[in-house]
């Protein structure tokens, strides 16, 4: 009751300030981090720097209490923060740095939200088109894309197959029934594949299996496309991904936009991205790596957007 009252006051206050037609009052953003580890700290620093640099009057308050009190907007960074914040009914929430599949799952399980409780998100994953444009631009001779997936994997095989075929490639999908059969699945898949595409599925690409997957695919001389820089350091040939700093900048510009227009961005993929290759692995597999600038230009042409 107390919370509702406070929220009501906040909403009334907001309405009054809007009615007065002036932005005299600071716009307050609550920043809720899933934890204090490096990626979140980097996100927070980049988010604040971008907002500070833009000369607006947005105040960023880092919080660990998910009350939404006095907040014009709550930015939830990561899945844990998003889950906690999802209980809030009246505060607009921007979730950032969350995997698409997990976010959609969470939202699907939510009760219908009342009007005005806006939810927006900037995913961590790259859009499928960008991911595939990256692969086909960087590895034009690797047309047979191998994929290990489980029944629960967050991947739309039909959409993926269609996108790959549009790029004159072939998708070879192999179902992994249990962890025990992972090796056999790889033995079936790898001789037919030129590349192995990793997906965010812990039951396949978990810490326990990644070693095995990298060693086995290396034995078959099939390079792995990773999900992040960590994958590339571990032995994937390359990855396209967005860093916390990049997502921090994008979130800041969304917040800044919202503070002046009150329009939430909806569902967005990252604008900026990073491309990393593992030179040593490429050399060992005798694969010539392209110039990163060239790949970026290609992606820009394909999307006609930022990069």
């Amino acid at each position: 009751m107390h919370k509702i009252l406070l929220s009501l006051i906040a909403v009334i206050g907001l309405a009054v300030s809007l009615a007065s037609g002036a932005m005299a009052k600071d716009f307050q953003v609550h920043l809720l981090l899933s934890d204090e580890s490096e990626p979140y700290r980097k996100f927070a620093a980049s988010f604040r720097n971008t907002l500070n640099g833009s000369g607006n009057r947005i105040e960023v308050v880092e919080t660990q209490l998910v009350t939404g009190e006095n907040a014009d907007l709550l930015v939830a960074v990561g899945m844990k923060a998003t889950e906690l914040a999802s209980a809030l009914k009246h505060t607009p929430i921007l979730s950032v740095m969350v995997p698409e599949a997990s976010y959609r799952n969470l939202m699907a399980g939510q009760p219908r939200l009342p009007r005005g409780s806006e939810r927006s998100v900037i995913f961590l994953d790259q859009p499928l088109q960008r991911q595939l444009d990256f692969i086909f631009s960087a590895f034009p001779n690797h047309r047979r894309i191998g994929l290990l997936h489980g029944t629960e994997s967050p991947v739309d095989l039909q959409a993926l197959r269609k996108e790959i075929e549009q790029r004159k490639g072939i998708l070879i999908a192999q179902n992994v029934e249990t962890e025990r059969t992972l090796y056999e699945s790889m033995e079936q898949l790898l001789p037919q594949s030129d590349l192995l595409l990793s997906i965010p599925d812990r039951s396949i690409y978990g810490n326990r299996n990644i070693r095995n997957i990298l060693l086995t695919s290396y034995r078959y001389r099939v390079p792995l496309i990773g999900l992040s820089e960590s994958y590339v350091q571990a032995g994937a040939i390359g990855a396209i991904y967005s860093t916390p700093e990049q997502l921090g900048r994008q979130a800041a510009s969304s917040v800044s936009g919202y503070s002046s227009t009150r329009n939430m961005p909806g569902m967005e993929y990252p604008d900026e991205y990073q491309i990393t290759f593992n030179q040593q692995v490429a050399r060992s597999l005798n694969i010539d790596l392209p110039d990163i600038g060239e790949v970026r230009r290609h992606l820009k042409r394909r999307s006609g957007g930022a990069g």
Partner: protein
Amino acid sequence: MIRYLCILLPLVFVKGAWANDSISELDFFSELPVVLSASRLSQPLSEAPNAMTVIDRDMIRASGFRVIADIFRLVPGMQVSASNGWQPTVAYHGSTDDYARRMQVRVDGRSIYMPPVNSVAWEDLPLQIEDIERIEVIRGPAAASYGGNSTQGVINIITRDAGTVQGFKAHVNKGNGGIADAYASLGQNGNTLDYRISLGYRSDHGYDAVFVPYDGWTAINNDSYQTRLFNLRTNYRPDARNSLDFQLGYTSGSRGDGIDKPGGDPNSPHDRHNNEHFAQLALLHNMEHGDELKVQYYHIYQDVLNAIGPVAPFPALSDSWTNTRSDLELQHTLHTSPENRLVWGASTRSDWTRAEHRFLSEQTVHQNTLFAHNEWRISPKWLLNIGALQESDSMGAWSTSPRATIIHKVSESQTLRLGIAEARRNPSIYEESGNYHFPEFGATIFQASGGLKPESILSREIGYIGELQEYGTTIDVRIYHDQLRDIIFTTDTNPIDVVNMFDAWHKGVELTTKHHWGVHSELTFNYAWQLLYSPFITPPNGTPYSESMPRNMFGVLYSTKVNDNTALSLGYYQQDSMLPIDRPDYDRQQLTRRMDARLAWKIRRSNDMETEVAWVVQGIFAKGHVDYMNSNVYQPRTYLSVAVAY
């Protein structure tokens, strides 16, 4: 053995859950262990500073070979033979005596060539053929990278990583000639700890008994053997940057020895008992930009109990020995710029031997090495490799082995390599101070007078590699010219001695082509033509040096998947006539042809269990050629193999 198992049992119960909870951003950001680090990656053929043959698991399986030495039939220019049923010999470019002393052999970086006995005891090696991930054979001197005894080549055996296979696998082989093998392994991987345990047994009756017309009696060939093997490999990763790899291995076995000669022989039929074990610890620290620091320590123990008789009228004899080796090595790989990679390191080794009848006292040799090699990408088309190794030992030997190779990428698929290398082999402790004597007879067979110079080789080569992907074909050609100086060889004195006896020239061509049809059929073709020349000397037993290697050698391995469950492979190996360097003329080997076949069926009962039945025939149509000496007559062998995995 029981002790090892006690350590292991708790590990067997470490199991992880089949996690399927929803993922978070941490699945993207969490550091992953560095898996494909510098020391684990192999160089592509087109960038290696030497000619290199890579044999992977699939080829080994397709070949149907049961013993490791046979695998080297798949290397152009490598000659595989056997001085008896349990003592295979592997030689590259000469040295076809029963010791391969001019080639380095390493298993996961552990040098297994043992100078105290001057040889590689292949059958005693605690290594099971099933546990091999791949073998890289460097053809040509690579002392700059691999140190002593790499004067003519290096065999690098890389075993399967601890966490590569999950679950239980077992198989048994049963065939003629006493073939009876068994293998079982259990593997499990976890978030920070992986392990693999394997147990094995291998046995056969060696060469069959034959009538030897030159000697006028039937050689019984008391050379059957049984070998029991045990291996453990664990990999522990406290964090993403560091890993600790620990291995234990153990073999124990009896080997038939001695001659059942009419009228008796002091070396009467008896069993030797050979034991070998090792422990190896490697710490790997991965740094930024793919730089890596590796520290490795290992200890090897070999023990041969060879006691004979007494069998009247001869007294009891003993020719037993014990060897140990401890070795500590540090290796640092660093990228000084994106175009330049430097690998440098140092090692210290101590070899100890007690062999009452082979030395007058216990022997210890300390050896230190310092090495560096640098790979500079001058441009995308040019790669320069320069390296050197400096080696010194407590016997007073001091030598440097440099190497330089320039590689030119003529086009995206074609590479030319020009290399020059100089390598030295320091005399072994046996060559320097061996004394093979039997006071029971008042006989000294071998007495080293010492004071030997290192042997040296100056090798020049031109290599071509064509990777014609559009045709599914790879071509690897090497033309070489080697100049060997001060070859250490036995005198015809009594007792025998070794001296820096002669110089020799080797030249030849080696060719490997690989061709694949789709993903299911592959053909590997190897050919070697070699000419050995030495004008100075004919070694004591009358063998012309130039005939000690076959002039032409062929090897073909074809494998195909007939359907999802059936695989067929055929191997063909042919070599010209030759006479092993330390054998008299009546042991001349005529042209030999060997054809092997393997047919395998997979039966999948459920998703969790798979059975494979394979039938292997070795030496189809063989008419019985001689291996190394005339009593070793090669006869066809066949065996059936049944494997289960779940």
